[in-house]
């Protein structure tokens, strides 16, 4: 495609986005407003992530896209194809080979290394949104570090259910300052956010916000001393590769409601199977 600039966006727009990214990296966890553009895919389908990826991709990069941990889900395929067409970059499904990974709702199982960038698609960047719908209010709360409302919400969960009833998009505190929404990743992934070797960038297109975590940032999931944070997953091994340490999807496999659990990270599962870890259900 020659009608469009490298990675679709024009250079001025990419520059504007890079500035927002740099500001975000300088103030970890702070939501930087940016002039999000209309992209040729719908808002809510990863336009924030796509704009961040477009701004950081170079012709030498190798790009990987996952949605729900998988490379082959329809929207991941669509976004990967978009950058193949508009940027001509090499693509991969292998986590360790990728230099830029765009993700929706998961962090890969395999630890990322320095030099990699993980780009998250974010639907609602504001962790306080469902406690206070007004943007003008929540921005004030962040600037005053007024997070009492969030702690009250978590406390009410415990008093009502005995647990914090948030299982994904579990709020975190970054470097002891900003409360941040990690995007709707399962809380199983939360411990991977902190002290990560890769750069983590978060793009919310419709809400016009970018935020970031530089490498090796301290990220703490909110909790109480007597109710410590607990990363949870289905209590099964993967039905394909036998992994016991990976996040699992539950599949319904017959009319009688029979179930099977498999790795949500398809690359992780395939690499393990290729290395000889097979279970009875593996093809």
């Amino acid at each position, binding site marked *: 495609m020659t009608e*469009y600039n490298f990675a*679709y966006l*024009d250079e001025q727009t990419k520059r504007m986005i890079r500035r927002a990214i740099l500001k975000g990296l300088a103030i970890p966890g702070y939501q930087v*407003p*940016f*002039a*999000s*553009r*209309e*992209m*040729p895919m*719908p*808002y*809510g*389908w990863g*336009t924030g992530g796509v704009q961040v990826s477009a701004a950081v991709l170079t012709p030498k990069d190798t790009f990987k896209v996952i*949605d*729900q*941990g*998988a490379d*082959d*889900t*329809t*929207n*991941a*395929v*669509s976004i990967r*194809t978009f950058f193949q067409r508009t940027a001509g970059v090499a693509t991969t499904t292998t986590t360790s080979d990728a230099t830029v990974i765009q993700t*929706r*709702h*998961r962090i890969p199982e395999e630890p990322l290394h320095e030099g990699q960038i993980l780009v998250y698609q974010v*639907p609602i960047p504001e962790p306080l949104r469902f406690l206070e719908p*007004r*943007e*003008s209010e929540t921005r004030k709360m962040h600037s005053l570090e007024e997070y009492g409302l969030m702690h009250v919400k978590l406390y009410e969960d415990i008093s009502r*259910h*005995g*647990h914090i*009833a948030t*299982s*994904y*998009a579990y709020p975190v505190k970054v470097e002891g300052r900003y409360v941040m929404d990690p995007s*709707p*990743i*399962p*809380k*199983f992934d939360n411990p991977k956010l902190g002290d990560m070797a890769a750069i983590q960038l978060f793009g919310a297109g*419709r809400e*016009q*916000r970018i935020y970031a975590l530089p490498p090796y940032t301290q990220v703490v999931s909110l909790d109480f001393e007597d109710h410590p944070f607990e990363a*949870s*997953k*289905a209590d099964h091994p993967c039905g394909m590769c036998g992994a016991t340490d990976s*996040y*699992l*999807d*539950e599949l319904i496999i017959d009319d009688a409601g029979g179930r099977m659990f498999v790795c*949500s990270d*398809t690359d992780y599962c395939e690499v393990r199977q290729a290395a000889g870890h097979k279970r009875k259900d593996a093809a």
Partner: protein
Amino acid sequence: MYVAVKGGERAIENAHAWLAEERRGNTDIAELSIAQIREQLSLAVNRVMAEGSLYDPDLAALAIKQARGDLIEAIFLIRAYRTTLPRFGASEPLDTGIMACDRRISATFKDLPGGQVLGPTFDYTHRLLNFKLAADGEVTKAPSRDAETGNVPHVTEFLNREGLMEEAPHDDTPPPDLTREPLEMPADRALRLQALTRADEGFTLGLAYSTQRGYGRNHAFVGELRIGSVPVEMDIPELGFAVEIGEVILTECETVNQFTGSKTEPPQFTRGYGLVFGQTERKAISMALVDRALRWEELGEDNVGAPAQDAEFVLYHADNIQATGFLEHIKLPHYVDFQSELELVRKLRREAGAQQVQEAAE
């Protein structure tokens, strides 16, 4: 399965091929041309230009064809295309006072300089299906005369002379650009108007209607509604003066609203303003009503908690491209988040069950 672990790529390709076939429909029926859509579905074209924020009837017609007549989808196509266009500069402010009006009505004065011009309106048609159109669409020629040229004064100016109309002070501050800066609150009137002119017609209409039914009522008269073409001038740096580069058709609506005065303002009439690309009068009138409702603060009125008074609510939810995208994204797979919810609900149920057993035992 719409997302087999493998095969998503082929499924997408096949879906696109099928979509293309459905768009075309029965190939025994002649294909629609862009010119046919532009000429015969011109109000749809106008809406797509207005909410797409791009004045180009041919591209809007193409978008309608490609979108199978889904106007929000067509608006989306135009918006996505618009983002890629380079910006050469900004035009001079348009002067709607020199509009060559096809239609110009005032509901506040029986007659006025420039006259009332009904123009091509549905207003007094009887809404009876015209079965003759199903057979042939031939029309008899309508009588014509040249458009009024020269200045067509705005009705609100007459009221202004008497001091009955709220002043609209001249302001040379460059307006903010919604498409180049993130929308942030509080939004000034220029920014609010910018958001409203590209806002979803249905949403704007609903909000405007709610003000008429008492949710932030500010009884509005259509002081003036005018539709016609206005020249667009642009300052060319090499020439050192502005030249006309084309013309656009616009709908402008100025409402005159009752106002009994507040702590800060004397009793007078106040203004609501709507300006929209193309012949789009339902949208322009709606815009003017919502604009007026949003002005409660600067006029020192009470906030009665009506949705149309709430700038943050109105502006963050008026864009149909944002709204439709986020709404429809819930079709995307969410099994990772759903899985974690499943586990949580199972855990809570287990514990609740255990508690009940224990209570029964006690």
